[in-house]
């Protein structure tokens, strides 16, 4: 080991090739201008080298034309760079609706990953190829960053909120997983592997793992924590019924609405008073400090599974955008 000298990372996701193509364009522009400048310097430096200590060159007239030409051409090129980069970024930012969801929790200094079906992994992530995978991520302490170079994806993982990234692996294999945001002493040890597998292999792997899906674990927690005392399916408790809440638009006390996404459910559990449902008192206790981010994830999945279309994971994106400018995830 240690003697291989690769020059490009592997193209192992759908977006990899796109990023590489952008790279080729950027490199072409850069090489062109670098050669132009270096070439001009060398050429002029040799051609016009000082031949006598007394010589005084004629001064060359400055014109607007030249200045405009060499401003406008680079500007046009940069706008291509902007547009191209932005369009890739848009695709990188919006997970497809059919993406399979996995939760990631960063913690000094490990990655904890949880599959819907209940498998939990540390510093390893198994995924099927040819299927978009969406990661919903948060951190228990400081900022980390989930980075898989061969997929060309990276996203910071921020404490106190959820962030998302997604990718679709195209080649089976074993890929580096790095923490890319400095997070303290063992930052360089916060690494792992992503295993991209053929779908059946992935299925086998899933079946081989621990039983009990995330939502089942969440269901058990829901009882252990006595959530069900207040949240009754028929809505006759002190709190609202949670059936069908996920993905709906919730009316808040004091006006305004909010879309009930993962961020909102998380906030409702950890900081219930932040957004109070219309018609209820703010007397849900906070569970901050009592449960881990992983527990929160399980509860979220349980609440999702209560939805009108149980078992489907993501009940559509049909909900209207949030009114007002207060971000839904804070």
């Amino acid at each position, binding site marked *: 080991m240690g003697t291989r000298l690769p020059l490009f990372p592997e193209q192992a996701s759908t977006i990899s090739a*796109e990023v590489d193509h952008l790279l080729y364009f950027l490199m072409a522009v*850069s090489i062109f201008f670098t050669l132009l400048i*270096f070439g001009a310097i060398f050429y002029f430096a040799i051609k016009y080298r000082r031949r006598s200590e007394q010589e005084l060159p004629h001064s060359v007239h400055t014109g607007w034309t030249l200045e405009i030409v060499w401003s406008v051409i680079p500007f046009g090129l*940069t706008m291509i760079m902007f547009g191209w*980069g932005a369009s*890739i*970024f848009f695709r990188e930012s919006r997970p497809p609706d059919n993406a399979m969801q996995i939760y990631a929790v960063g913690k000094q200094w490990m990655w904890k990953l949880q599959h819907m079906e209940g498998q939990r992994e540390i510093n390893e992530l198994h995924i099927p190829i040819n299927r978009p995978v969406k990661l919903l991520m948060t951190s228990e302490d400081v900022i980390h960053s989930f980075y898989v*170079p061969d997929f060309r994806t990276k996203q910071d993982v921020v*404490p106190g*909120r959820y962030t998302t990234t997604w990718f679709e692996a195209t080649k089976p294999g074993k890929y580096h997983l790095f923490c890319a945001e400095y997070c303290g002493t063992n930052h360089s040890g916060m690494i792992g592997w992503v295993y991209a597998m053929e779908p059946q292999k992935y299925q086998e792997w899933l079946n081989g793992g621990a039983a009990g899906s995330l939502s089942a674990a969440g269901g058990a927690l829901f009882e252990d924590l006595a959530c069900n005392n207040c949240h009754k399916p028929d809505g006759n408790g002190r709190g609202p019924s949670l059936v069908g809440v996920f993905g709906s638009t919730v009316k808040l006390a004091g006006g305004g609405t909010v879309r009930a996404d993962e961020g909102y459910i998380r906030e409702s559990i950890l900081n219930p008073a932040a957004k109070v449902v219309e018609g209820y008192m703010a007397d849900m206790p906070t569970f901050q400090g009592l449960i881990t981010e992983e527990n929160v994830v399980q509860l979220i999945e349980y609440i999702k599974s209560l939805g009108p279309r149980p078992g489907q994971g993501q009940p559509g994106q049909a909900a209207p955008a949030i009114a007002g400018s207060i971000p839904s995830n804070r």
Partner: protein
Amino acid sequence: MNTAAVQERTNYLNESYGLKSWLLTKDHKRIAVLYFITISVFFAMGGVFASLIRTELLTPPGDLVSSETYNKLFTMHGVIMVFFFLIPSVPATMGNFFLPIMIGARDLAFPRINLLSWYLLIVGGALAIFAMVAGGVDTGWTFYTPYSTTYSNSYVIATALGIFVAGFSSILTGLNFIVTVHRMRAPGMTWFRMPLFVWANYATGVIQVLGTPVIAVTLVLVFCERVFHIGIFDPALGGDPVLFQHLFWFYSHPAVYIMVLPAMGVISELVSTFSRKPVFGYGFVAFSSMAIAVIGFLVWGHHLFVSGQSLYAGLVFSFLSYFVAIPSAIKVFNWTATLYKGSISYATPMLYAFGFIGLFTIGGLTGLFVASLGMDVHVTDTYFVIAHFHYVMVGGTIMAYLGGVHYWWPKMTGRMYPEGWAKLSALIVFIGFNLTFFPQFILGYLGMPRRYHAYPDEFQVLHVLSTAGASVLAVGYLMPAIYLFWSLRYGEVAGANPWGAPGLEWQTASPPPTHNFDKIPVVTQEAYDFSKVAGEVIEVG
């Protein structure tokens, strides 16, 4: 014969003697020398840290130092190099020395404030050094919360305070320059007769004055979070750590232009002098400095593309980032065009200027890579970014700094440096630099994350190249340190105008007298008018 002449004339160096005459001086030239000594020490410190970093990275496992130590090394390397070396570098030394002379003033507008700002740098530096000696600091030079506020148990407070104090040094320097340029120009020295070096330092002053206070207050907040446990960035309270990043980069992006604009000013002087021609497109180059200063404030969010900032903010900041590239491009093209039909000399400063133009071009162009959203997601926080900014800061600013030091050395000391050695070291620096940092572009694109103490085996070859380059680079930097020191005593005595340059600083003696001119000059011509100087060798008056 010349030796005697120099000895007899009183100048700023021999006007008075003794430590006190230096420590209480109000002469901008002496203060510049004080700065020069101070930041050289800081550069050497930062360089030692860099050497340790590179040595550790020679092998994949973290074997030379512990990971705590490694983290402290790159933090202190970044902090020292940025806040205590590169930000003061060109303005506080060459700017301080030559800005007043170049506009025909006797001194800066506020000499006492100038001295104060040197003392502030010393106090800030002392605090930072205290933090290092006491145990170091490990947050990275970016101090991201909540790590810096809650989790790190290193000397964050002392370091933050040190940077805070040094920040005021920078503010006061900028303020002094702005007022001086507005109020102290010699008769006839109109705005468009000012040398481009003055324009560049003026633009830098604007950034220093408008940007630095924001990082000052941000560090005050970090300080208060650690000391008084208030919680403005604390996610546990509902605070937002990304807000810290906005405030930090509001300053620290413009700060990269604090680091490069004055260097660009130096390059304009060098390119003109050593091609004996006015800088091509003078007005464009002057205005591009101002444009960079202004637009530089609109792009900070490009450091936050994957931070959890909103997508739309990412779009806005990426878009705006490309607008700073244009004034930089204008400068590069105009410098190159200046060479056209010039009378080009290969003196050492000019070699550094060539180095600057080439390396800044590469560094700047890779800045365009990271400003492109889809690309940055992949390369942010990898060695690609490390390579980008070392190309602009080391390949750019330090090249210009060294070029400037060689160019003005005869004026500042009255002695020439040894040309042969200087040319050799310029070559070594250029080669060593590229060997150190070019492999890092490849490393970065391969996915090598930055701030990694240990790394996977397949990255080793490129890391070894980089470390080898750093050793060459270290030799290249050590040589000037030695021969410049040597030249103070043994260097050839320099005349008033060894380069045949037209700037006002070359019209006065080398070294200049305390109030710069025997008689305040009256300016009647454009900047860079070589017709007066070419052909006639001006002897010490």
